[in-house]
């Protein structure tokens, strides 16, 4: 199953790369995608059946808008902190507890947090995620968990789990 | 064009001096990576996309191997102690540089000015190659059709190097 999913994805990638409809290119693409699924299929997603569930794509599109908005907000926030003459920063590393189970959802959450300016995911150890933050709002775990990962976590749960 | 190239090559010279005089081997390797990636930009400006692609890939692989080697062993650079025969070495270096300079001068005087190259040897390659070989990329046509022997020898060198690496580095042999 996962091999088949990788086969489809790599074949689509090949067609986008070549962008031609001549028969030689199409047959060569089949061969290349087959080789890819033989070599790397074992290490792809464990349950690839999620690719054909349409409601996940719906939430993905909504999540893209939410992520863009949060990104713009965080950009202005960091720009304000940098341009302010007294530089009001309070950096530190917080430990956030994760509610997501699947490894890929955790990876995506970590990447979303890293791509938002001001926060960088340092590592994931067990069920905890260590995040470096440019301005620590509060020391209370419930408060900062909501502030760091609560914005994305529900959507990612709906998309990837 | 020439000014832009000169600036980039100037940066590359500074980076290579840094690489040679760095106190830490890891920073020397990173400075050498700067020289390699600067070369990629030079190739792009010189209209050689083939060379740019292969140089960027090969430079990355070289950096991986070098960093692995240095992290395995030591990364300290020792102080250069003054030699007894240092004067002789310096004189010999200057003599060597002078000889190189003379030959460089003779070689450069036979060339056309930069940017006004006349295609004496490869005139036939450029005009007739596409019809003869059917290859749109002229570099691939030259590489595999007109100069196949060169490329075969080059593949042999790579093959020999891989075999040599296995032979030299193996500690525990097969029982």
């Amino acid at each position: 199953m996962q091999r088949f999913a990788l086969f489809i994805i790599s074949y689509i990638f090949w067609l986008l790369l070549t962008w031609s409809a001549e028969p030689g290119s199409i047959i060569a693409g089949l061969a290349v995608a087959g080789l890819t699924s033989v070599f790397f299929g074992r290490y792809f997603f464990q349950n690839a059946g999620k690719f054909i569930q349409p409601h996940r794509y719906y939430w993905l599109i909504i999540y893209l808008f939410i992520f863009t908005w949060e990104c713009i907000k965080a950009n202005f926030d960091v720009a304000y902190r940098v341009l302010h003459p007294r530089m009001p920063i309070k950096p530190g590393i917080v430990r956030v507890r994760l509610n997501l189970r699947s490894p890929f959802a955790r990876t995506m959450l970590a990447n979303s947090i890293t791509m938002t300016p001001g926060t960088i995911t340092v590592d994931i150890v067990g069920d905890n995620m260590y995040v470096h933050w440019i301005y620590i709002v509060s020391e209370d775990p419930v408060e900062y968990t909501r502030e760091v990962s609560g914005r994305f976590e529900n959507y990612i749960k709906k998309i990837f789990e | 064009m020439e000014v832009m190239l000169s600036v980039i090559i100037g940066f590359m010279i500074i980076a290579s001096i840094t690489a040679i005089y760095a106190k830490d081997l890891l920073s020397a390797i990173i400075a050498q990576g700067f020289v390699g990636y600067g070369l990629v930009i030079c190739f792009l400006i010189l209209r050689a996309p083939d060379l740019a692609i292969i140089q960027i890939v090969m430079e990355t692989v070289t950096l991986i191997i070098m960093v692995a080697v240095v992290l395995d062993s030591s990364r300290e650079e020792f102080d250069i102690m003054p030699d007894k025969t240092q004067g002789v070495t310096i004189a010999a270096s200057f003599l060597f540089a002078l000889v190189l300079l003379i030959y460089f001068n003779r070689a450069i005087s036979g060339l056309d000015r930069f940017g006004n190259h006349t295609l004496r040897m490869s005139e036939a390659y450029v005009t007739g190659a596409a019809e003869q070989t059917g290859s749109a990329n002229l570099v691939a046509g030259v590489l595999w059709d007109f100069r196949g022997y060169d490329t075969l020898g080059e593949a042999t060198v790579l093959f020999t190097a891989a075999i040599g690496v296995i032979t030299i580095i193996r500690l525990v042999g097969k029982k």
Partner: protein
Amino acid sequence: MTVFILSFLMLLVGVHGVLTRRNLIKVVISLTIIEFSIFLMLALIGFISGGEAPILDAGISAGRMVDPLPQAMVLTAIVIALATNAMLLTIAIRLYKKYGTFDIRRINELKG
């Protein structure tokens, strides 16, 4: 003409490194710099100002193309450079395993 002289300067820097450094890894780096300067020199020789990349496409005539011959030469040379570099580094780490140092002079002293 400036670019030729600059790439020659880069070659001199590499030669200087090979002659004066005592560290094996530094010697490998200097050899790499010499190789880079020679690639650059060959690519500079083939350039035509205002020329196009040597790839036939619709709308590009064969008249104003840069010389493909030096590019093919440098293409093979880059791969050979990687192979020789890997070989040199392997020899260097085997020497390190035997003598415990990268210093050429100490390796010379500790014969056997």
